[in-house]
C-alpha cells in the first residue's frame, strides 16, 4: 500500500513548533509603512534592504536560522527537521522573508558540501547574520536561461583569474559582497558545458560594475553586472576548471529546504487561493461580498480545482503505477503548471477589484496596498525566468510526449 501522507509529529517537534510560533508572533516587526517584498528578487531600495537585514539578523541571533549548520560556523548543529518546522511556521504566519537567499540556499550549502575549512570559516557566518549579501551570476544578456551558451570569460593569469563579460538578472547585485559566478575557462572544450567553471567572486573588485535594472513593476531588485579585466584570486574557484556546470546543477538541489542542506528561512511570501477568497470576501459589490456573486464563484471554484490538482500531482507522482504512461509528465511540467496558475490567479485578483484594480502600490486606496498588482507583475519572473513557459511546453512536448523538435 502506497500512502503519501505525512506521519504524525513527534511530541518534541510539536513542542518546538509552539516555541517558534510564539517567538515569531512576539518578534515579527510591525508594519514598516511600505509594502514588504514578496520574494528576494524585490529588494529594490536601501529602506527595504535595511529592514530585511535587521529581520534576518534577529532570526539568526535567536537561533532559528541555519539550525542544521555546524555551531562553529554560526549554526546550531541541530537536526534539519527543526529548521523545517521553523520554515513551515514562518510560511504559515507570513513573517517577512529571509532575503539572503543565494547565500542561505545556494552558496552556503555548496560551501558546506565541498568547500575547504578556510572557506567555511570565511563565508558561512556572514551568510547567516546577513553581513554578507550574495548574488547569483548565471544568466547572461541574450542567452536567457540557456546556461550552456555562457560567454563570460575567466582566464587564468598567475594567481588570478581575469574575468571579462557581463551577467544579467543579478539579484541584489548592487548590494552583494559575493557572487556565485559561472564563467567560461575553456572556450575550446568539445562539449560547451565542459568549458565552464564555478567561482565565489568578490564583487568589490576593480573592473566589476553593476547597473540596476528597473523592472516592469517600477521597482528595482536586479542588476546587470559588467566585468572588465576584473581580477579575482585563483582560489575563488570551486572544484576544478571545467566542473562549473556540474557544480551549478548541484546548487539547484540545495534550495529544496533544510533537509537538502539549505540554511532555511522562507524565501517567498506564498500566495494561495485562500488569500484570493479572503479578498473576494472583503470586496463589496451590489451590497454583498463579491464572494456571493455567482460568476465570481464559478471562476474561483475553477481556480480551486486547479490548485487542488497542483497539490495532488506531487502525491500521484510518488505512485509509479499511476504515472506509467507518461512517466516524466508530473516532474517536467511542475514549473509550467505552477507558475501559469499563479499568473492567471493573480491577474484575476486584479479583475475582481473593480475600479480599484487600476490603482497601484503607493496609492492609499489600493486593495491590500497594491499587493496583488505587484504580485501579478512580478509573477512574470517565474513564467519567464528559468526557461519561459513556452520553452517549458516545448520540453514537455518533446520529452514527455515525444513530439518532434521545432
Amino acid at each position, binding site marked *: *500500500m*502506497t*500512502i*503519501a*501522507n505525512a506521519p504524525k509529529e513527534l511530541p518534541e517537534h510539536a513542542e518546538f513548533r509552539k516555541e517558534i510560533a510564539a517567538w515569531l508572533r512576539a518578534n515579527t516587526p510591525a508594519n514598516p509603512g511600505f509594502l514588504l517584498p514578496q520574494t528576494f528578487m524585490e529588494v529594490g531600495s536601501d529602506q527595504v534592504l535595511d529592514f530585511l537585514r535587521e529581520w534576518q539578523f534577529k532570526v539568526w541571533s535567536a537561533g532559528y536560522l541555519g539550525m542544521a549548520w555546524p555551531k562553529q560556523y554560526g549554526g546550531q548543529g541541530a537536526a534539519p527537521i527543526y529548521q523545517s518546522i521553523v520554515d513551515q511556521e514562518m510560511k504559515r504566519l507570513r513573517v517577512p522573508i529571509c532575503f539572503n537567499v543565494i547565500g542561505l540556499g545556494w552558496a552556503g550549502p555548496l560551501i558546506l558540501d565541498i568547500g575547504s575549512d578556510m572557506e567555511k570559516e570565511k563565508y558561512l557566518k556572514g551568510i547567516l547574520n546577513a553581513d554578507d549579501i550574495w548574488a547569483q551570476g548565471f544568466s547572461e544578456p541574450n542567452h536567457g536561461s540557456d546556461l550552456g551558451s555562457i560567454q563570460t570569460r575567466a582566464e587564468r593569469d598567475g594567481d588570478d583569474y581575469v574575468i571579462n563579460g557581463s551577467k544579467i538578472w543579478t539579484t541584489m547585485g548592487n548590494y552583494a559582497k559575493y557572487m556565485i559566478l559561472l564563467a567560461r575557462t575553456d572556450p575550446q572544450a568539445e562539449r560547451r558545458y565542459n568549458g565552464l567553471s564555478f567561482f565565489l567572486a568578490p564583487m568589490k573588485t576593480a573592473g566589476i560594475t553593476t547597473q540596476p535594472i528597473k523592472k516592469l513593476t517600477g521597482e528595482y531588485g536586479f542588476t546587470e553586472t559588467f566585468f572588465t579585466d576584473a581580477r579575482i584570486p585563483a582560489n575563488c574557484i570551486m572544484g576544478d576548471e571545467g566542473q562549473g556546470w556540474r557544480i551549478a546543477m548541484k546548487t539547484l538541489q540545495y534550495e529544496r529546504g533544510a533537509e537538502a542542506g539549505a540554511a532555511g528561512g522562507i524565501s517567498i511570501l506564498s500566495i494561495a487561493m*485562500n488569500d484570493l*477568497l479572503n479578498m473576494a470576501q472583503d470586496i463589496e459589490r451590489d451590497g454583498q461580498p463579491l*464572494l456571493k456573486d*455567482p460568476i465570481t*464563484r*464559478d471562476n*474561483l*471554484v*475553477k481556480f*480551486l*480545482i*486547479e490548485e*487542488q*490538482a*497542483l*497539490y*495532488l*500531482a506531487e*502525491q*500521484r507522482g*510518488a*505512485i509509479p*503505477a*499511476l504515472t506509467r*504512461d*507518461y512517466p516524466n*509528465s*508530473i516532474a517536467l*511540467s511542475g514549473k*509550467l*503548471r505552477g507558475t501559469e496558475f499563479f499568473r492567471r490567479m493573480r491577474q484575476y485578483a486584479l479583475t475582481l477589484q473593480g475600479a480599484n484594480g487600476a490603482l497601484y502600490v503607493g496609492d492609499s486606496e489600493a486593495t491590500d496596498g497594491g499587493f496583488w498588482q505587484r504580485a501579478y507583475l512580478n509573477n512574470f519572473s517565474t513564467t519567464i525566468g528559468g526557461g519561459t513557459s*513556452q520553452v517549458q*511546453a*516545448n520540453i*514537455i*512536448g518533446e520529452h*514527455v*510526449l*515525444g*513530439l*518532434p*523538435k*521545432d
Partner: protein
Amino acid sequence: MRKTNLAMAFSDEQAMILDSAKAFCSDKSTIAAVRNLLDSETGFNPQVWQEMVALGWTGIAIPEEYGGLNLGVGALVPLVETMGRHLLGTPLISSALTAQAILRSGTESQRAAWLPALADGAAGALALLDNVDWGGDFSGCTVSGSGDNLTLTGRKLMVADGAVSDLFVVSASHAGQPVLVLVEAKQLPAGALESKTLIDETKRACNVDFSGVTVTSSALLTPSASTLHELRLIGALLTAAEATGTAAAALDLIVSYLTTRVQFGRLIGSYQALKHPTVEILLQMDAARSLIYHAATLIGDCPIDSNTEIACRMAKAQATEALLFAGDRAVQFHGGMGFTYDCDAQLYIRRAQWAQHQYGDAQHHRRKLADLLLD
C-alpha cells in the same frame, strides 16, 4: 478556513486491477472492435462481458458474502479509467451503480436477492433522471397505493444501458417521501423502453416509462436522506474516471498523428501551434487523473463526507472539461481527415458530449462546489 485533504493511496489490489485491465482492454477493445459495435443493438460484445464477469470485475465493489471481491468503489476507478481509454462498451458502470444502490439502501433479503446476481453478470441500470440538468431532488416518478399494492407512474430519462438491464433502480416519490424502487425488466409493459439516438455511438440509453408497473413493498429500498446524493456522486466519479481514460486516448491519437503527418515539409508535431495545445491536453488529463485517484482514495462504503463529495465533484468537473478539450482538438488537429467518420477523433469528441452530461456537467458540479468551498 477549510483544511485541504490531499490523501492519495493506491493499493496492491488496485495496481493489479489496473494492470490486468490494461492488458484485457487493449486486447479485446481495439479500435476495430469498437467500430464493429457502433451500429450493434446492445453496444457491447456479450462474450467480452462474460470474460469480465469471470475476472471478477462485476463484483469489485460488492462484499464477499454476496459473491464479490469487496474492494470498494475506489477499486473500480482504475478499471473504469482503462475501459474509457479503450472505449470498451459494457454495462459495467451501470451495474456497479445498481449494486451500490442496493448495498447502501437494501434490506438483507434485497441484497441477498440481487447482489450475487449482479456480481455474476446480471445487468442493472439506475433510473434517476427526471430533468436535463441533474438538478433538484424532486422525482417526476411517483408510487401510489399502499402495502403490497403499489403502482408506479412516470417516466425516466436517458437510462444508461436500460435496454439490456435485468433490473432497474428507480427514484420516485411515495406519499411525499423519496424512495428507490426495484423494478425487473420483465415487469415492464410492452413499449416501455424508448431507445434514444445518442451522439456517442459506443453508448446506449433509453427513456423508460414505468407507468402501470405494480410492485409489492418488498421492491422498496429504504434509502437514507443521502443515498440518492451518494449514488450521484459515485456516478460522477466513475464517469470522471472513464472520461479521464478517454482524454488520454484522444491525446495518444493526437500524438501519433503529430509524429507521423508531414505538411510543408515538416512533421506537424514540430509546429508549436499544435505542440503547445497538445501539452495543455496532457496537463488537463494529468490534473483529472490526480483528482480521480484522490477521490478513489477517499471514497468508502461509509456515508460520503464533505471531503469526498468535494473530491468527486472536482474530479467530474475537471475530467469532462479535459475530455471536451481533447476531443475537440483531436478533430481539429487531424485537418480534413478529422472531419470524416473514418477518423477516430470522432469517437472521442462524441464520447466527450456523453460524459459531460452524465451525473451533472462541470458547471453543475462547480455550483455545488462553490457552496461547499466558499460559504
